[in-house]
């Protein structure tokens, strides 16, 4: 359990600093199990901050959304930091962005939360479809304890845990300025079981599977906007000349979009699942992300977002990189 009082105090202390613009964390949403991002510009805003197993979202995207407006001649740039509340996985997004120099270390204050796992909102919704005002969920010893209007239910963690948490290898943020509570040691391992099952399918089965998925894509680009690593000033899909991806929504363009998005995150995606969670059409984007992650580990012995000093995967090479052909 995360001590919310400690979290709020840390947020208060952080926003009180002159060199901090705001801190982003989580607060309770208006109804049901909802949790939404919360922004503290002032110490008193911190009283709303919570951390519960509902805080599944990755907030590392916010520092990337800061606009840098052009300055007038005598204007000083706003160099204030942004504070972000992060779980283990979210912190890896920041590490990866630092590695790519998308942010400098001094641009962010990282408030780290050692995480015991969060729930998948869709699984929760399926189990408890009611929509009340007094709904909450806490982590028990090996279950989740859910309260809906004074009634309590307990449910095995496995039934609600988000997929990413089932294989989490970095529960404690790798990088932080303030840690709320004690470090938690990793006990789980990524096994890529789901990916291996997909790999076993025949070409025909794979085509039919992905055709069914991509044909539903409405190209809203929510997956891109939610991803902390999709921070290009001008995304390739917005370019008009040359126009790499046509506006038309059809299988060919949709496939190209999804393939290129996944490829652009190769060696960068840290598996927070925010893209898939944001997709209104339930397209299993994590299967693509995980597939690439697995290949990268096997081919290049590389893991994204664990070392801010490492060079980005596709910006370097090793002379003994595998090659697929025989000379």
């Amino acid at each position, binding site marked *: 359990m995360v001590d919310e009082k400690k979290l709020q105090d840390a947020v208060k202390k952080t926003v009180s600093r002159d060199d901090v613009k705001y801190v982003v964390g989580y607060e309770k949403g208006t109804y049901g199990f909802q949790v939404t991002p919360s922004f503290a510009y002032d110490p008193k805003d911190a009283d709303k901050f919570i951390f519960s197993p509902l805080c599944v979202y990755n907030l590392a995207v916010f520092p990337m959304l800061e606009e840098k407006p052009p300055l007038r001649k005598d204007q000083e740039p706003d160099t204030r930091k942004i504070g972000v509340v992060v779980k283990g996985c979210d912190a890896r997004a920041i590490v990866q962005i630092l590695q790519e120099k998308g942010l400098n270390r001094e641009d962010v204050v990282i408030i780290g939360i050692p995480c015991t796992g969060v729930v998948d909102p869709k699984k929760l919704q399926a189990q408890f479809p009611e929509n009340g005002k007094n709904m909450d969920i806490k982590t028990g010893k090996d279950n989740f304890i859910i309260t809906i209007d004074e009634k309590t239910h307990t449910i095995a963690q496995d039934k609600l845990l988000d997929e990413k948490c089932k294989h989490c290898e970095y529960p404690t943020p790798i990088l932080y300025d303030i840690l709320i509570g004690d470090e938690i040691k990793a006990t789980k391992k990524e096994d890529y079981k789901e990916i291996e099952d997909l790999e076993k399918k025949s*070409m025909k089965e794979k085509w039919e599977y992905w055709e069914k998925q991509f044909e539903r894509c409405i190209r809203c680009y929510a997956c891109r906007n939610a991803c902390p690593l999709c921070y290009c000033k001008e995304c390739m899909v917005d370019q008009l000349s040359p126009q790499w991806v046509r506006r038309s929504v059809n299988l060919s363009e949709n*496939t190209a979009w999804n393939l290129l998005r996944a490829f652009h995150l190769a060696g960068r995606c840290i598996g927070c699942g925010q893209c898939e969670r944001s997709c209104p059409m339930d397209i299993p984007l994590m299967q693509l992300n995980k597939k690439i992650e697995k290949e990268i580990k096997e081919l290049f012995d590389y893991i994204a977002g664990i070392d801010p000093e490492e060079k980005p995967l596709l910006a370097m090479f090793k002379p003994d990189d595998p090659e697929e052909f025989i000379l």
Partner: protein
Amino acid sequence: MADDFEPNIIGFLCNWCSYAGADLAGTSRMKYPPNIKSIRVMCSGRVDPIFILEALKKGADGVLVAGCHPGDCHYQSGNYKTNRRIMLLKKLLDELAIDSNRVRFEYVSASEGQKFAHIVTEFVDDLKKIGPNPLKEGGT
């Protein structure tokens, strides 16, 4: 697959090696199938996977990327980096059931006209077996 299927190939050839290699194949009158349309790039490192996708969407059945041999890249490491990119792209294509044999990365030096002709011949044969590209716009 119908016997009369003639695959379209787009070749991205490095200016310093493979393009000259292809030229040599031509000037020495080596025989190779006319299915390839070559685009000269200044280095195989210039080839963004987005180019390959674009070619496939626009109707290419196969894409050949050819660059200098390891150690010979005019810009030191373009070919190594392209090797990484294309390997990953191919894994992803296979995952999405777009036969990754539609994309080839080869090292062809300026003196290897013979090798170039051989690669193109072999690639055309392979693509005839694989069949038309499903990603083609307007196709399924």
